[in-house]
């Protein structure tokens, strides 16, 4: 029982992190039609920027996190405006552009910081004990921040004009534009929002797990997986799928260990595609 609850705690924690990543990813896809291959790169960049702020600039960690978000969001904004925007209707081209960006970010990080993991630690240590359940304080802090960010994202998307514009563009771009939504402003904003979220997650999680040039790759794979599961373009689906993925990963690693969990998850998603190609909550995706 204790193991069960322990796994649940881990699962929820992972779920919140994956939700931030998946929501950003699905947002970009739904609104811009862009598959952001650099998503893992922004996560990694968030970690490195936060690390640099703390180690090189001596800033306190919370400021470093904000710095990471600002940096990744700014890079996202600029990249969308000057690179993606030119070819925004060509989905394959934009995917390739983000792939190119990822390779540049990845190699750049490798060049500047080297291949080894950085000494980057979460400022809060220790753990809470609820009965026999062990909850590291750092995980709790990250969970709280993630949930806050999720709530803030929800508020932006459903309670502000910007958010309404973004969702309208995601639903039907032609109609939204006919109603006066300006993609020139909203597209970079959407991309920056997503990359900022990835950067936030990176800044929060890399001090707990690891910070090195390779950490972005599994993030990309998990984002892909989560978004396929939830249904491309569906925000609710992405959030739901993120928690499912987090839970499955937690339980399989606690009870089975090894990479069996990941394998099960991937195969499950693939099977899901057979019976329900739209994912859990997605929309019509019939080819052509």
């Amino acid at each position, binding site marked *: 029982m204790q193991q069960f609850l322990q796994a649940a705690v881990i699962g929820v924690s992972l779920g919140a992190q994956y939700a931030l990543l998946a929501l950003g990813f699905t947002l970009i*896809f739904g609104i811009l*039609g862009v*598959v952001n291959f650099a998503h893992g790169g922004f996560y990694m960049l968030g970690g490195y920027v936060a690390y640099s702020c703390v180690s090189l600039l001596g800033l306190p960690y919370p400021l470093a996190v904000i710095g990471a978000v600002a940096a990744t969001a700014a890079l996202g904004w600029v990249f969308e405006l000057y*690179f993606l925007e*030119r*070819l925004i209707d060509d*989905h*394959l*081209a934009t*995917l*390739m*552009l983000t*792939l*190119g*960006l*990822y*390779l*540049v970010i*990845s*190699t*750049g990080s*490798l*060049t500047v910081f080297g*291949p080894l993991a950085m000494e980057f630690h979460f400022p809060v240590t220790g753990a809470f004990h609820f009965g026999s359940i062990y909850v590291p304080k750092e995980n709790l802090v990250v969970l709280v921040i993630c949930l806050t960010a999720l709530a803030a994202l929800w508020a932006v998307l459903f309670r502000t004009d910007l958010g309404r514009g973004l969702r309208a563009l995601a639903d039907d771009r032609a109609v939204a534009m006919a109603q006066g939504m300006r993609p020139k402003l909203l597209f970079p904003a959407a991309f920056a929002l997503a990359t900022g979220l990835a950067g936030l997650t990176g800044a929060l999680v890399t001090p707990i797990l690891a910070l090195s040039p390779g950490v972005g*790759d599994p993030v990309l*794979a998990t984002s*892909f*997986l989560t*978004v*396929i599961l939830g249904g*491309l373009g569906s925000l609710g689906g992405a959030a739901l799928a993120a928690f499912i993925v987090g839970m499955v990963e937690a339980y399989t690693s606690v009870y089975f260990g*090894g*990479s*069996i969990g*990941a*394998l099960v998850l*991937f*195969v499950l*998603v*693939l099977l899901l*595609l*057979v019976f329900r*190609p739209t994912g859990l909550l997605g929309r019509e*995706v*019939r*080819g*052509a």
Partner: protein
Amino acid sequence: MFRKEPVLGGAEIAALVTMAAAFAIPMITKNVLVYSVLNQALVGIVAAQSVWIMLRMNLLSFATPAFMAIGGYTVAIAGRYEITDAFLMTALAFLLPALAAVPLGALVLRLRGTYFVLVTFVLSQIMQLLLFESESLTGGSNGIAGVPAVTLLGTEMMSNRQVLLFACGIAFLATVITALLTRYFRQHFAAIEENEILAESLGLVVWRYKAVGFVIAAGIAGLAGYSLVNMLLTAHPSSFSSESAVDFIAYTIIGGRGTILGPIVGTALLVYATNLFGTHGQYAQGLYGILILAVILAARGGIAGTAAAAFRRVRG
């Protein structure tokens, strides 16, 4: 008014001539570095052609390493039982991935192009995990070492020169298959690439051609896997990572997606460039990234396409 197209076009013939010329290199020299670069390039060219076939229909596949793994491990496992005949193994290295691609294709090809990309990426991840988890078959994280040499008509191809010649042979075969396929279905693939909806409204059974492309591309990738295992004498999961998919895609895009010469030119140049980095090979990916950005933004036809356009302009 509507003439029949020739079986092979200029680009295809140039590609076949180039791949045939490759055979000369191991006959002329014994330079170890040249052998290494050429062998890497030959493996890469076949893998890039696999990517290129799907790209003809505007579909970007990340599954190349997964199908390479099926081909490569088939050969390695057969090697355990002393089965090394070149013709048999070539056939199996092509057919087994192609067969696997049939149900996978049925699953994946119904979906939109962007879904296709994501799902092929996931397929690569799954293959990696399968390779690690099935120790009894694949040797798990140790892989299968000591893969015996290819036996061609009774001769064991053991020397460096023979290994390289065999790689030339595989690459030539792959080029022939790729050229014939993309030439025969040129109009169909092009129609799907340019305007799938229009093509379908005219009666083209789009999914069928995507399926044929996917299956043959899988077979070609299997051949690349065979060549890779033959070069390394080892089948190891790290040779078939999803990261290598990025390399093959880079070769194709940078080389030029518009012609069969593209994957050949791109692979040759980038493999050579990567070797210039020497021990700092991991920085080569940064170069790929910059080149990809440049090609997509400014030179869509890649190196081959841009060269062809310049040549046309010069000719007037």
